[in-house]
């Protein structure tokens, strides 16, 4: 039960060329999508808060690789990567960012608030840590229905200090809910480095008091994330209750678009990018293992560029929501 640190690197990855290419492609889609979102923000086409996921791509892509059909996911406002990774349409996501009728929430949610019942994506939440009990509630519903599903509940290192997280840990363990708590530790909560906010650095041990097993995972290595995810999901599906994964990652961009990022050095960011980039890592595995040629990768790059370009075009061309939308979706009609 006790939280423990896995030091061993996953054994020589038992992974096919096709799988590696899929991860490369999925991570690259997130990165290029986010870069484009940053550009559109710069042009004033996206407003308000816009939190980019660049640098953290291996976390969702690795965990989605461990998920099965019907499993659920819920996260914070830093949600674009989660949506793309679970198969939501980049056009609809980008159009929500620009506040257009073609967006997932018809333009009424914005960057932080999107949902897809079809893909079992439950948002998109703007209150730090509010998604944690909500995720446990989704798992509660699955347990009630005995359907064998697991919910991935993502939150940040900053969110890990909210009281409702521990209220949730207690009930999730007490009721043995099938939920994987994924702490995306990108080392900062806005401008606060983790050491300035957190009395003990090892967030994966935070479930120990509740008897929830926890592991720390290298979040820049998609294969390590996937392996940890599979283990956690297996425990949940076996009815053993919740599991905590502290995934060490890093965000390259500011907290949101308006973050001057004076709390860390340029060198720190540059070093991460150069030495630990999760996409370069898979790229190297592909090339060194001779699973793909430079040309193969170029053609993936091209394909991604086209998808993102199309999403951006859609997001600019989709009309603004009809004014009548102001008054819709406040109440659901009773199904007769």
């Amino acid at each position, binding site marked *: 039960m006790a939280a423990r640190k896995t030091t061993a690197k996953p054994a020589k990855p038992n992974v096919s060329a096709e799988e590696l290419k899929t991860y490369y492609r999925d991570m690259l889609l997130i990165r290029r999508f986010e870069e484009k979102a940053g550009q559109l923000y710069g*042009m004033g086409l996206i407003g308000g808060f816009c939190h980019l996921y660049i640098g953290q791509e291996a976390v969702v892509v690795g965990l989605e690789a461990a998920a099965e059909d019907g499993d659920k996911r819920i996260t914070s406002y830093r949600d674009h990567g989660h949506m793309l990774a679970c198969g939501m349409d980049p056009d609809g996501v980008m159009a929500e960012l620009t506040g257009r009728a073609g967006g997932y929430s018809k333009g009424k949610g914005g960057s932080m608030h999107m949902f897809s019942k079809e893909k079992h994506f439950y948002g998109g939440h703007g209150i730090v840590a509010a998604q*944690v009990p909500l995720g446990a509630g989704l798992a509660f519903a699955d347990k009630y229905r005995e359907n064998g599903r697991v919910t991935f509940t993502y939150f940040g290192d900053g969110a890990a200090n909210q009281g409702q997280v521990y209220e949730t840990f207690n009930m999730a363990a007490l009721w043995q809910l099938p939920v994987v708590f994924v702490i995306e530790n990108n080392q900062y909560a806005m401008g606060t480095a983790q050491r300035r906010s957190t009395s003990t650095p090892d967030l994966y041990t935070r479930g120990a008091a509740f008897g929830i097993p926890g592991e720390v995972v290298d979040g820049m290595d998609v294969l390590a994330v996937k392996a940890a995810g599979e283990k956690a999901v297996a425990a949940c599906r076996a009815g053993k209750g919740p599991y905590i994964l502290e995934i060490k990652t890093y965000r390259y961009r500011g907290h949101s678009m308006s973050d001057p990022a004076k709390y860390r050095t340029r060198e720190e960011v540059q070093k991460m990018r150069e030495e630990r980039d999760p996409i370069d890592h898979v790229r190297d595995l592909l090339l060194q293992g001779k699973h793909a040629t430079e040309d193969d990768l170029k053609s993936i790059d091209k394909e991604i560029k086209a998808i993102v370009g199309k999403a951006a075009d859609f997001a600019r061309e989709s009309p603004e929501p009809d004014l009548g939308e102001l008054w819709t979706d406040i109440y659901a009609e009773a199904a007769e």
Partner: protein
Amino acid sequence: MATEILMPALSPTMEEGTLAKWLVKEGDTVASGDILAEIETDKATMEFEAVDEGVLGRILVPEGSAAVAVNTPIALLVEEGEAVQDAEITAPAQAPVPADKTLTSESAPAAAITHPSPAAEVDTTPDWPEGTVLKKQTVREALRDAMAEEMRGNGDVFLMGEEVGEYQGAYKISQGLLDEFGAKRVIDTPITEHGFAGIGVGAAFGGLTPIVEFMTFNFAMQAIDQIINSAAKTLYMSGGQMGCPITFRGPNGAAARVGAQHSQDYAAWYAHIPGLKVAMPYSASDAKGLLKSAIRDPNPVIFLENEILYGRSFDVPDMADFTVPFGKARIWRSGTDVTIVSFGIGMTYALEAAEKLAEDGISAEVIDLRSLRPMDTATVIASVKKTNRCVTVEEGWPVGAIGNHISAVLMQEAFDWLDAPVINLTGKDVPMPYAANLEKHALVTTAEVIEAVRTVSYR
């Protein structure tokens, strides 16, 4: 073909900024992620990173330039070995402004600010058919029966809260439910309002129909973020995809001598929130019929009960499936001289006052709103058009009270019919004191209702 680098918007409110410093010069090779310039926004100095790679062909806006509009071309990026064609340098053109930025509060069309007007039709259908057998029941029993009936009818309905199971409810509302439905559906929670409210909302997102009991609504303040930000707003934020069929219920308002932290009426707080429905029954039949409606409703419902009323008995129709709809007031007494509008325990004072006033020849019409969101303002307006006077009675505080809202509605919809200013009777504007005599003074009293009616009647 050169790519224009545009002056970026670097904050939600930035429209222009100062190009403080170029960190690259013409001819430099730049890669994605390199810092090109420092830009001062309305909030901070920001580093501006390159997205594309290439060679900086030409700087169009020199450093130190102030008030550079967002989207103005500030430099040209060319490919390795390419030269900037002078023809490509367009004058720093008027930046294209996206459509939504042109809409200001002055230019927004009036259609955007029209408000749905209150339903004109008054629904006067009786709550139960004539001839229905009535039985005496306490509010407590009626609430329990409502939950039990709905739980029998729908396996997805479950009850969670502190002491709802083995203890049979802190106020014995869930008496017998654990025995009948088992621990899977009647769930004792730890003392952790924020957490279990969130779990309840998540379970509702996941398709179940939770009833979340707060031991009292005073403790729901710990959970109010989940109630409002998660339960009430998600349907809207999801463009209609993600409903939240949940009922939050428990006693609300002052009990007796329990002091300031345990004696507060939250009616106006929750009635303020679009996306919530709010019911506050007075009688046992309304408690039963409205709670059944609440559990069936596909939206989050705040169901405000009252500890003092739990033990009171009323007539309840003996019907297989009795429900009361939201948004339909009940006229307890018809009258011709004044309209008294109340809800919840306030009805006790309203009805007592009407009784006494009748002895003095003043005929009061007493309306129980029953649900506060939606609110049946049509019935109130129709009544005031008949009586020309109105007094509202509630237990909550006076600032931003339910009565204030009713006064505003009457001013807009029945101004010409009013013969006197509307009086809003509320609890006093103080935290609830403990001392017995002070507590009585802090609450609304029957005497105050009588006095207010005399004031608006000028008699």
